[in-house]
């Protein structure tokens, strides 16, 4: 279940995380000794509690905290789960093992009163611990499932493989049609960028559009590195993009469907996600620009569309009060969409033929954004 060999060494980060986790248990024990009802404080994780971090230009948690108190059953159970999780992580670090978030969820089956009802709950608790300790879950020896987001483009990478050997390869010439799979750990010690021969990075929401651009050879004709976001991108994908962007310093554009959920994908890449705002400076790339599909595109290109559902409308309205979308441009587009009551997918561009997106749409948009010259 747990893999012992892979990360057998205990890093400074691991040791620090372990010490900080034990401090949480100590605090709770102390509260009990002082005849106080045990409690834990965690930053409130709502859109009302994210503020712009001026240094990094990303959105981070503000000062609102949520107190989980053993006064009520939910709070008491949460505190107990924290203790069990702390104990589990501490033991893992001690024995030099690691586990996936899913494995931890299954291990909690044996925790009786502290067992998690769903994996969402255990994932969220791991994030809580990150926020409290200011360590990353990698320090806890917890990792997500491989999510298989892909990259294609003229980019040379050096990656340390399972056997500890460093392998160097090019993401255009040395990979198959499906591209290079982004691993869950994309930190310096695991992955280094050797050379980038491209003028831009295009991050794409859907696999269908990613494959279309690959088939049409857009990476070569326009010297682009294509990254498949695979829906709401995993942490490692966002971290990969962030590192690639700061290494190469070439423009980064985000290409998604034209609906409120896709705008949130853009926001999580550019500004940081509400769920992971505690590590936004590691994950978010504030220089990212949104390419489309915009509500204006739906009108200008007369794209095939669907009517907004009630949930879509609510999501758009919620974005109007989300500080990450507070710019005039975003507010105008969102309001336009609420007026249109329409949404379109990326692949709706196929209305004008399979080459339209690479021959016409992207070049036009990139010119408007002054990323390529006309």
């Amino acid at each position, binding site marked *: 279940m747990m893999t012992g060999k892979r990360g057998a060494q205990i890093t400074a980060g691991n040791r620090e995380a372990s010490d900080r986790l034990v401090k949480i*248990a*100590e605090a*709770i*024990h102390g509260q009990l000794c002082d005849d106080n*009802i045990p409690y834990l404080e965690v930053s409130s994780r709502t859109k009302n509690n994210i503020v712009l971090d001026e240094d990094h230009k990303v959105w981070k948690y503000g000062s609102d905290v949520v107190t989980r108190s053993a006064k009520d*059953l939910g709070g008491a159970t949460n505190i107990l789960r924290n203790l069990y999780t702390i*104990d589990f992580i501490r033991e893992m670090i001690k024995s030099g093992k690691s586990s996936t978030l899913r494995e931890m969820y299954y291990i909690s089956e044996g925790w009786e009163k502290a067992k998690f009802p769903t994996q969402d709950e255990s994932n969220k608790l791991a994030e809580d611990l990150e926020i409290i300790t200011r360590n990353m879950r990698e320090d806890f020896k917890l990792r997500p499932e491989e999510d298989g987001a892909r990259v294609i483009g003229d980019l040379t990478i050096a990656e340390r493989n399972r056997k500890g050997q460093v392998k160097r390869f090019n993401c255009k010439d040395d990979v198959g049609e499906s591209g290079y799979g982004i691993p869950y750990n994309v930190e310096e010690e695991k992955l280094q960028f050797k050379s980038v021969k491209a003028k831009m990075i295009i991050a794409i929401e859907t696999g269908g559009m990613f494959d279309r651009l690959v088939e049409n050879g857009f990476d070569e004709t326009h010297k682009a590195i294509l990254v498949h976001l695979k829906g709401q991108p995993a942490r490692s994908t966002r971290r990969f993009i962030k590192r690639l962007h700061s290494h190469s310093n070439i423009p980064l554009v985000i290409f998604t469907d034209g609906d409120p959920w896709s705008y949130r994908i853009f926001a999580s890449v550019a500004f940081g996600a509400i769920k992971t705002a505690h590590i936004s400076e590691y994950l978010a790339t504030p220089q990212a620009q949104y390419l489309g599909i915009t509500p204006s595109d739906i009108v200008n290109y007369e794209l095939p569309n669907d009517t907004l559902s009630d949930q879509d409308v609510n999501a758009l309205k919620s974005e109007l009060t989300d500080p990450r979308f507070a710019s005039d441009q975003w507010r105008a587009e969102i309001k336009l969409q609420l007026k249109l009551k329409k949404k379109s997918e990326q692949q709706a561009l196929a209305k004008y033929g399979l080459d339209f997106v690479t021959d016409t749409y992207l070049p036009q948009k990139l010119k408007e954004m002054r990323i390529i010259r006309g």
Partner: protein
Amino acid sequence: MSQPYAETMAKSQKEISISDFFAKNRQILGFDNPSKAMLVSVKEAVDNSLDACEEAGILPTIFVRISRTDNKDRFRLMVRDNGPGIVKKQIASVFGRLLYGSRFYAIRQSRGQQGIGISAVVLYSQLTTGKPAIVTSKIGEDHPCYRMEVQINTKNNRPQMISNEVVLWDHPHGTQIEVEIVGRYHKEKRQSVYEYIKSTAIVNPHVEIIFEDPDGVVHSFHRVVDKLPLPAEEIRPHPHGIELGVLKNMLAYSESRKMTSFLTTEFCRISPRGAREILEKASISEKKNPKRLNLDEVQVLYNIFNEMKFMSPPTDCLSPIGDLLIRKGLKKEIDSKFAHTVTRDPRVYRGTPFQVEAGIIYGGELPAGDTVKILRFANRVPLLYQQGGCAMTHAIERINWRPYGLEQRGGKGIPSGPAMILVHIASTNAPFTSESKEAVADVDEILDEVGRALMECGRKVKSHINKKVKLKKVSEKYSIIKDILPEIARKSSEIIGKPHPPLDGVITKIMNVTVIDSGIMYHEEGEEKFTEVTIKVQNYTQKAKKFRLFVKVPNGLIQGIFPERNRMKREIIEWEVGPIEPARSVRLGFTILGLDRTDYDDVDVYYSHLTGEVIGADPL
């Protein structure tokens, strides 16, 4: 040839007998379709039996059987009672003549008010299958039992006896009717024979009904009280309740020779002085013979009746079911957690006495998402049709149920939630909307009374729900202090390698409540019935508690109150409790003698001089 057309018409105009009329308009009596006809037939026969038994002071035992015939549309219906039986020469008339019965001119609360019921079933059977009704009746042990085949001559509304024999019958007395009718039998339907019988059993807890359905399955609805309801009294009409036509008939058939005696003897609440005043106003001589009044005079008299004030009619003529008995009936047939029933004082509308009773049951196995089921009754008879057109339903719809803890769209209409509502109207003349007596008309006085009764029930439901919410909170807190907190202590100690901290202080801080928990134990020793009530008071706060506790109890049946420091005043036991130290508890209690198991099933506890959160009791 210029014969006036009216003369041509006159040739085809002839008197239509009442039977003929009903034969052609059977929906008026409720026989609209085969399903309804089946139900109405059962209902009329059972109502008839119940009325007969009660009039004779016999606890009714009714047997109902529906069986299939070779023809899938036809069923045989048999209803047998243990009533007083019918004397031989009346049998044919009772079953074979419409509008025949002893009740038609009496003003009294009874199930069938117009004597139209059972003969209509005979008529329906005759019209749909051509078969006569078979009536068996015996009036006592030493009397012969007669069995007759009866039909109605629809031309002259006269009974026809087809056969007549003396038979052996192994019942001491009673009446049995068998008819074959075109009908349809539904198993699971709101308006089914089963539902009707079950509902009847709920509001008639003194009745034993056994029902054998077409599949041969026997359903028993047992008697829960061995006492007959008090018989309803006959009263004379009240001047406000009389209709013009009836007044005309009363004058015409009066045995009084003078108007003064007519008014004082044939009406209630008209004194000799009142009579003189009426006649003076109407300019009618006091000595005038009632038969001699002309139409104008009758109209004037009628108008004066309505203008003048009279004392309300007596209301002791009504026979309510009683809130305790309704509760017994409900609890017997429906599994629920909570029931509250109300019997209002009698009231009067337009000179007619009426009385409203209502009940709500809540929780248990009742489905939470559906609109609540409504059980409507008039004079102990379930009303199964035209729910939407009935005053009882309208009164329910007018109430905003949300403050009482039921869901209701827009605060109007039939509420939804795990509840069932029962409404009963007892009256000497329930104002039905039609002859088939399926719904009560919107009379303001009735709407208001039903509303008041239901709101009282609603308040009780709400306090029951509140209690439940609070108890849930307590049980959550128990699970924190019993299961979670010790684990938190153990796990945190284990991680940092220190000894377990003591938890008493934290436990009282988490609970911070005084819990009053009451329990009821019922047992019997020979003839004696004991209901033992215990009340446990637990102090989960950080301060000692000293306060007073009160419990409402039935008067005169209490013994063994403990502990000592208490006093009993009227229907209230009062205790001096405490001081109870933090984390300690005390027990109080008493025993009730003579009540049945379901009679006392909810302990009403109140407190005073107690601060902080209290669960399980209300402040006095």
